[in-house]
């Protein structure tokens, strides 16, 4: 009887080993510890650089605030300076350097649902082109100020990134869900978002990859000031 139990136990353990090894082989073998260490080193570098990035952008926002306050002080002492300050304030607002609020729309883009054949459990990942298409549509419909997940779009803004990561200007990568806030004529923007002829690429990916696109009009939306670099060292005004 005890011999039988022993054999059964051995068989059970062998079975468990078999399952673990099979799972391991399927999962592309063990991650060697040095490989994990290298990966972790890369991750730590990213985390350090992101922390520096956040800190630099905060300092830029603080400096812009201090400069505006100093200019306001100077403007209070001179009519000429006041006129110049008013002009610069308006130009800064158009350049995305002033936080704004007003009626508008909020569009949300979310990763697609994983399909039944998706072994990894990952669906379509929102990319920068999806975001760019939505932002361009809103600007085409007269949006006066736009931000993407808290990053203000400026006249010099650029989009980049790989699948699932959206990089705007000098900010860290954004991931799903991505919120696009636009201030402007919300009826006009909503009509464009409702129009099946607009956003053909995004709509195709909605059908093909279950990319989520939702939007709503709101009576008051806030968009922050840009905290990115707006340096133009190579241009000279004619």
């Amino acid at each position, binding site marked *: 009887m005890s011999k039988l139990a022993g054999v059964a136990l051995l068989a059970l*353990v062998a079975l468990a080993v078999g399952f673990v090894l099979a799972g391991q082989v399927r999962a592309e073998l063990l991650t060697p510890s040095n490989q994990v260490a290298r990966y972790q080193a890369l991750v730590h570098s990213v985390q350090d650089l992101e922390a520096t990035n956040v800190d630099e952008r905060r300092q830029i926002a603080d400096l812009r605030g201090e400069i505006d306050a100093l200019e306001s002080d100077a403007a209070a002492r001179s009519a000429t300076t006041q006129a*110049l300050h008013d002009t610069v304030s308006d130009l800064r*607002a158009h350049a995305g350097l002033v936080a704004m609020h007003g009626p508008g729309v909020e569009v949300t883009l979310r990763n697609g649902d994983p399909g039944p054949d998706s072994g990894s459990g990952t669906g379509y990942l929102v990319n920068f082109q999806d975001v760019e298409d939505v932002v361009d549509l809103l600007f085409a419909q007269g949006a006066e100020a736009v931000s993407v997940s808290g990053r203000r779009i400026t006249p010099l803004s650029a989009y980049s990134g790989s699948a699932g990561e959206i990089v705007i200007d000098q900010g860290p990568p954004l991931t799903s869900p991505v919120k696009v806030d636009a201030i402007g004529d919300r009826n006009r923007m909503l009509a464009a978002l409702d129009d099946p002829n607009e956003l053909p690429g995004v709509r195709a990916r909605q059908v093909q990859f279950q990319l989520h696109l939702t939007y709503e009009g709101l009576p008051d939306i806030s968009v922050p000031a840009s905290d990115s670099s707006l340096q133009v060292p190579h241009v000279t005004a004619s």
Partner: protein
Amino acid sequence: MSLRPESRRTRVRIRGLSVWLIALLVALVATIQIRSQAEVERSLVGVDATSLAFLIDDLHSANDALASQKTDLTNLRTTLQSGQSGAADQALSEEAQRLRAIDGYVGVQGPGVVMEVDASGLTALDLEDALNNFMAARAEAIDVNGHRVVTGVAVEQDGGGIKIGGASVSLPWTISAIGDPQKLAEVADLMTQQLRADRRVRSVGYRIETEVVISSVISERPFVYAVPS
């Protein structure tokens, strides 16, 4: 024939030891696997090492640009804090001119590249991609066929043609971009190679110029809905 009790005990001991050894092996493999998985999951989920390397490169460039901007702003603050006569007016005048260039309200000039694309069937999306590629290379001013483009100017498909800021633009496109000529040339070179493989494209090329002149401007639009917070 029966085994002697001592020999039976030895066999039982060996069997027991084997079971423990195998159990230990299972526990070891499972622990390493779970820890490895946990290490990976704790970090950036689903991002491979190559993407992380690119991300590090991008963040380095971004942080350099931010540091440079911070230096400029710090110097400006110092100038304003000095309280010297006319310092604020001087700073504000320079800032106004710089912002007019950024907003696209004045003509500008500087080093850059001029790219020419002759094709049939290219769409607004193709042009938007090209413009975004130049913007990502930190173009400071762009013009397409005499129309100033900044982020926010609508590039729309209009039937078989394209509209930039509401004005029709037909092929061939001449894209002028001012900025760091080396960075812009790298991007122009990549796009040229890609477009040469596109059957719709008849000819494509670019040249680096020490002085690109952009005289097109954007009309200032007053805010109707947006109010400063």
